[in-house]
């Protein structure tokens, strides 16, 4: 009897090995698209809704690699991804200018917000200018948590510091987590510090955080997502057709409609605003903020 248990586990392992090998070869045969994207699109759950629809429509298998926008674009630059969904304007323009990315199209936006503890020792609550509030945080030497990972959020944060004319690096009150947005928000909440976050991730995590929105609505806080196809002329192994097909799917009316309503049920307000076909400049001038939220009612199912 006891001998049988031993044989059985070995058998089990071998069987599962074969199942695995089998399944991976089957999937390798269907065409795959590597989507390199920022953590916020995955952590918000949006891609979990969109990707199955795309796969069903087209028969492609999508490999979503959710990393910071910095790494996502590095993957595009190395030809290790087929299509990028990112939110880091300056770096995006650079990758397109250098010819690694083509056909950059606007998908959607939401906004960044500055959050902090309700005590708000730097007294920034309600300020209209993001850079002015950063100045106050710096002069109060209040703890600020930075992503520090070259993500879209991090590069936006650096833009705001630049606008404030402050170099925060090296200050004891300025700490870099090197983690994703969700983790950074958790650290910020634990340490009762300030941080810059996209609204979607903040809403998703809000119930466990105890952090308040202190500054919002400044034009610099606009957070725009673009889709960029990786240029097959630079990297012949890129699945250009698949990348284009995914990019087309993202700007299609069907997808844009899903984006418009995504999150309303869970959070009482949408997490993203669809923008396909619009110009970046149009967004800055218009009111782009989500509606104010009712306090509770955002539990996970």
């Amino acid at each position, binding site marked *: 009897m006891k001998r049988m248990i*031993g044989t059985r586990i070995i058998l*089990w*392992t071998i069987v599962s090995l074969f199942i695995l090998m089998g399944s991976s070869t089957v999937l390798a045969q269907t065409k795959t698209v590597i989507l390199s994207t920022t953590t916020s699109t995955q952590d918000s759950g949006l891609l979990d809704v969109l990707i199955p629809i795309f796969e069903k429509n087209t028969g492609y298998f999508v490999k979503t690699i959710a990393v910071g926008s910095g790494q996502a674009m590095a993957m595009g630059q*190395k030809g290790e991804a087929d299509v990028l969904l990112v939110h880091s304007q300056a770096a995006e323009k650079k990758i397109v200018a250098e010819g690694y990315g083509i056909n950059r199209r606007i998908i959607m936006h939401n906004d960044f917000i500055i959050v902090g503890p309700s005590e708000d020792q730097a007294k920034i609550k309600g300020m209209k200018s993001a850079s002015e509030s950063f100045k106050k945080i710096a002069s109060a030497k209040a703890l600020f948590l930075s992503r520090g990972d070259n993500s879209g959020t991090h590069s936006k944060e650096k833009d705001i510091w630049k606008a404030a004319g402050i170099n925060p690096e090296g200050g004891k009150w300025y700490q870099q987590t090197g983690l*994703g*947005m*969700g983790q950074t928000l958790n650290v910020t909440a634990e340490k009762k510090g300030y941080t810059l976050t996209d609204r979607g991730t903040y809403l998703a*995590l809000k119930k466990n955080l105890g952090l308040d929105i202190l500054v919002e609505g400044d034009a610099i806080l606009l957070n725009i997502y673009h889709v960029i196809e990786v240029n097959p002329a630079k990297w012949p*192994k890129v699945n250009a057709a698949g990348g284009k097909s995914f990019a087309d799917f993202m700007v299609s009316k069907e997808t844009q409609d899903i984006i418009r309503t995504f999150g309303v049920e869970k959070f009482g307000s949408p997490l993203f605003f669809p923008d396909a076909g619009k110009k970046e400049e149009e967004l800055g001038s218009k009111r782009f903020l989500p509606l104010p939220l009712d306090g509770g009612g955002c539990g996970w199912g």
Partner: protein
Amino acid sequence: MDLIFEGIKKAFWLLITFDPEVMGITLLSLGVSGSATLISLLIGISTGVIVALSEFPGRRIAISLINTGMGLPPVVVGLFVTIFLWRNGPLGFFGILYTPTAIIIAQTVIATPIVMGITLAAIQQLPKKLRLQILALGATRLQMVWILIKEARLPLLAAVMAGFGGVISEVGASIMVGGNIKGYSRVLTTATVMETSRGNFDIAIALGIILLLLAYFINLILTQIQQRERPR
């Protein structure tokens, strides 16, 4: 405290309802880490025995390298395996980056030195005269090796447990080479990381509990085999 309680409740719920996604993730973890352990046993035990029984120049250096390898950081392994498997990398033509196969490869690299190092120590601690005695009784070299392996059964099963424990709990390499792709290359550890960053702490705790249960049951079975006969 509430959160941990919620997590335990969630874990039970996911288990008794046979939640298909969680079942898939759990089976994949078991399959991937089981396969990696199996392959590392083949490579690790054979190489370990050879190194233990043979004399060659630089043997001590080789052994210290193996012993260092027992502590290979998974992220470093993940990084190198990723670079090798990139489609424009040296092994890119296989096209297996971001697949379960890639995770098996990375985990095999992590587990092999562990198995090898313990095998080495296990064979070396057997009395030297035993070898002579077995050969004197007329056994072939291969038969001798087989008897030695059987003799070192207890520490060798410890090697299996250490190897399996090392890879089933590893996250750095799995997330880098597997990509944590939903329903495809998402294993228990990478799913736990993702749910944590999503703020779904209850699900993260539940996945953690399932991982611990899985590791416990595997080790229970291995311990049963190990303790089957009491050593003389």
